[in-house]
C-alpha cells in the first residue's frame, strides 16, 4: 500500500517536471514584456533594457530555467515581477478562499449528485431518470458566469439574502463565511453535480445489471438495501474517478467564479498574472494547480481500495 503510494508519488515527479518545462517555455514564447509593464507610459527603450537586465530576462532561456528550477527545488518560487512580493506569500494568502470554496462545492455536489444518479439509474427510463439527465445535461450547457449572474440577481439583488460579492474566511465567523461562499459554491456545483450525477447513473446502471444484484434480490433483500449496500459500493470507483478528473473542471470553474463573485483566490491570481505576464506567479500557480490535480487523483486512486477490496496495492 505505502509502497504503492510512494511509487505513485515518484511517478508524479516526471509529470510535474514536464509541466514545469512546458509552462516555462510557453511563457518565454508568449509576447509580453514585464519590463515594459513595469516601466510604464513614459519609459524609454534604454530604461526598458536596464529593467530587463535586472529581471534577468536577457539571460539565455536555459540559464533562466535552471536558476528558476533550482530555486523552486529550494522552495523559493521567486518574487512577483509586478508587485515585487514573495510568490509563496501571495499564493498562501490566496489559497484559503479557493480551497474552502472548492471543498464546499465538492461536498454540496456529492450530497446532491450521488442520490440523484442512484435514483435515476434505479428508475431507469422513467420521468425521474429523464429529469435528472436533463438537469445534468443542462448543467454542462450553461456558462458558469451566466449561472453566477443569475444567482446574484436572484439571491443577492432581488431577495437580498446574501452579499453581492466578496469573501470572508471561516475564521471571521461561520455565518459570514457561508453567506458569501454559498452562491459561488452553488455556481460551481452545477457543472460538478451534472458530471457526478451522470457518472453515478451510468455506473449504477452497469452494476444493477450484474449477477450479484440478482443474487441479492434472489435473497429477498429490500430494494433500498440492494441500491445502497450492494450496488452503490460497486459503482463507487468510476464515481470517484470522475470526482478526481472533474477536479480539473472545478479549478477551471473557480477561475471564472472568483472573478464573478470577487473572491481573492488563486484563480483570479493566476488569470491576472497571465494577463500581466508575471512569470514567477504564473509558473508557481500552474505548477501548484497541476500538483493539486495530481495529488487529488492519487488520493482518489488510493481510496479505491477502501471501496473495492479487490483493488490492493
Amino acid at each position, binding site marked *: 500500500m505505502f509502497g504503492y503510494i510512494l511509487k505513485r508519488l515518484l511517478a508524479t515527479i516526471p509529470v510535474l517536471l514536464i509541466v514545469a518545462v512546458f509552462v516555462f517555455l510557453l511563457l518565454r514564447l508568449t509576447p509580453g514584456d514585464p519590463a515594459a509593464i513595469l516601466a510604464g507610459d513614459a519609459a524609454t527603450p534604454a530604461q526598458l533594457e536596464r529593467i530587463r537586465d535586472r529581471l534577468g530576462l536577457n539571460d539565455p532561456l536555459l540559464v533562466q530555467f535552471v536558476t528558476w528550477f533550482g530555486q523552486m527545488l529550494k522552495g523559493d518560487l521567486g518574487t512577483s515581477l509586478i508587485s515585487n512580493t514573495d510568490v509563496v506569500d501571495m499564493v498562501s494568502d490566496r489559497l484559503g478562499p479557493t480551497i474552502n470554496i472548492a471543498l464546499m462545492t465538492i461536498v454540496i455536489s456529492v450530497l446532491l449528485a450521488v442520490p440523484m444518479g442512484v435514483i435515476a439509474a434505479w428508475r431507469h427510463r422513467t420521468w425521474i431518470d429523464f429529469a435528472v439527465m436533463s438537469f445534468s445535461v443542462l448543467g454542462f450547457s450553461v456558462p458558469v458566469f451566466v449561472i453566477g449572474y443569475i444567482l446574484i440577481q436572484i439571491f443577492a439583488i432581488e431577495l437580498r439574502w446574501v452579499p453581492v460579492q466578496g469573501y470572508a474566511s471561516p475564521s471571521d465567523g461561520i455565518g459570514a463565511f457561508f453567506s458569501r461562499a454559498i452562491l459561488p459554491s452553488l455556481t460551481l456545483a452545477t457543472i460538478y453535480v451534472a458530471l457526478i450525477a451522470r457518472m453515478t447513473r451510468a455506473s449504477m446502471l452497469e452494476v444493477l445489471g450484474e*449477477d*450479484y444484484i440478482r*443474487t*441479492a434480490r*434472489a435473497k429477498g433483500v429490500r430494494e433500498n438495501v440492494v441500491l445502497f449496500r450492494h450496488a452503490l459500493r*460497486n459503482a463507487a470507483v468510476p464515481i470517484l474517478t470522475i470526482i478526481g478528473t472533474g477536479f480539473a473542471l472545478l479549478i477551471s470553474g473557480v477561475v471564472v467564479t472568483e472573478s464573478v463573485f470577487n473572491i481573492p483566490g488563486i484563480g483570479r491570481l493566476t488569470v491576472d498574472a497571465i494577463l500581466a505576464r508575471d512569470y514567477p506567479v504564473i509558473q508557481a500557480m500552474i505548477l501548484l494547480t497541476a500538483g493539486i490535480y495530481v495529488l487529488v487523483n492519487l488520493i482518489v486512486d488510493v481510496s479505491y481500495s477502501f471501496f473495492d*477490496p*479487490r483493488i490492493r496495492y
Partner: protein
Amino acid sequence: MKFKTRDLSTAQRVLKIRKLKVGLTGRPDAQPVLNEIDLDIRAGETHCLVGESGSGKSVTSLATMGLLPKDALEVQGGLIDLEGFEITNATAAQMRDLRAQRVAMIFQEPMTALNPVLRVGEQIEEVLNMHTDLSKSEAKARTIDIMEQVHLPDVQRVYSAFPHQLSGGQRQRIMIAMALVLDPDLLIADEPTTALDVTTQLQILKLIEEMQERHGTAVLFITHDMGVVAEIADTVSVMQKGEIVESAPIRELLTNPQKDYTRKLLKAVPNLAPRPARAVSEKDAVLNVDRLEMTYGGGGWFRKSEGVRAARDVTFDIAPGRTLGIVGESGSGKSTVARCIMRLIDPTGGEVTVAATEISRLSRRNLQSHRKHLQIVFQDPYRSLNPRWTVARSLCEGPINFGTPKSEAMERAAELMELVDLPKDALDRYPHQFSGGQRQRIAIARAVAMKPDLLVADEAVSALDVSVQAQVLDLLDDVQDRFGIAMLFITHDLRVAAQICDDVLVMQKGQVVEQGPAAAVLANPRHDYTRSLIEAAPGRHWDFANFRALERAPAVEGPIA
C-alpha cells in the same frame, strides 16, 4: 451405471407450473420465450432441466424466482404454484418474503454472483437479517453452522473473506450455504457447476445431493450436460425452443427416449471410450516442442504474482495427420502452451520447431513468413471473427498477406465454404448473421485457407452445444484427413479428447503429468491426477449415444474420491 430410482409420487408437490407462457415485454404476439410449459417437482426430488442454449431453461428458473428482467421479459399466461402460493401475480413484497425462505437459487458464475465488495459471511448473514429477527450473535452462529455444513475449510477465516480471495469451488459452496441457510423447500440450481473444473464439479454435485438429503429440499437443476444429469437426476425434462419436448424418469429417458430431439441430443453426447487410434505415420513430425517454458514476469500495476511459471519443461511432437490433445483443468497451462507455439506470446525457454524451423526466438518480422505453417481456432466463436468484416474478407486476409491475388483468394474462399458446408452467399454476410457453430466453421475455414501444416484448436468446441460440438468435431476430423494437417487440440473435456485425439498429454499446474496414446492414457491412467480427472467425469459409465452402459468402462471402478 446406477441411476436414482426413488419413487416420489407420494411425496408432497412443491412446485407446480402449468401452461407457463413468457414473452417479450409488451409484445404478446411475438414468438414466446416459454411456450405453455408444465412442470412438477416434489419434496426431495431432483428434477433436471436439460436443453441447449436458448431453449428457455434459465428463463423458467427466473420466472419461478419472479426475477424476470422487467423491461425485457414478462409472464404472459399460465401459473407458477409454489406450495399453493401463486407466484405469477404476487406483489414485490410477497416475493421478497418468499425468496430464500421457501425458494432459493444458486447461479452459474460463483464469481459474479457474489458481491465482490462484501465479506462472504456478511452476505450469508444478510439473508438472516432480512428474514428473521435473530440477534447479531445468533445470526453469526447460524451462518458459521451452515458454512460448516457445506464443508468450507477454516470457517472462521472464510467468514470474513472476500469472494475474490476464495476458489471457485469455495464460492459456489458459499452460494449454496446462502441459498440453504433458511432451508427453503425448493432450490433452483442454474448451471451451478458449468464454470467449474470437473473435479470441483463433482464435489459440488455431491454437496448439493448431501444438503438435499439433509433438508429434504426439492431441487430444480438446470444444466446442458447429460453426464451431470445422469449422475444426479430423479426425473428429467428436455427443453427445446421454449417448450418441454419430453419429461421422464432418468433411466427411462436415457435408455428409451421417445422424442427425436431427445435422441438427437443424446446421440451427440461423446463418451469416454477413446477413438480407435490412427496409424502412426512415418513422416517426421511437423511440430517439435522441446522443453518449452513460459514464465510470466511480474510487473504491471495490479499483478501481484511475481513470475508465474505457467508452463514448465513441456516436450512433445506431432506428426502430420495426427491429433495430440492437451487436457487439463483451468490454470493447468494448456492454453499457454498453445499460445507459445503460435507465438502469440513469446516463450521464456525451450524450443518450438515448426516445419523444420525453430520459431520460438524468431523476431516478429522474420516470423511473418512462417505464420502460414501454423494456424489457430479459438474458443469463443463470437469474438474470433472481426464483427465489421464480411466472411469473405476474413477468409481472404491470410492468403492475401502471403501474396495470393484477390480473385484467387476469393475462389479459394468459396471452395472452403463448401468444405465447411456453409452456403456460398454466406461470403458476403457478417459474423453476427451466423450461429456460434457456423462461426466456428468459418474460423476453421479461415485457418485452413492458409494450408497450414499445424492446426491448433484451443478449446475450439467448449463454447458450443453438444449437437453443434459433434458436428464441429466431425468437421475437424474431415479437414484433417483431407489435408493431412497435424492438430494440437486443447480441451478441458476428457470426453471430447477421447473422441478426437490419437495421443493425449495431461497437464497440471504447468507441468506434463502424463502423456501417451489416448487409449492407454484414458483406459488405464497411471498418474493420480489423470485418474481423478477421469473419475470425476460425470456419467462416464454411460454410452449416451447408444442408450446403454459403456461395456468397457474406462478407469478403475470404485468409490469416487
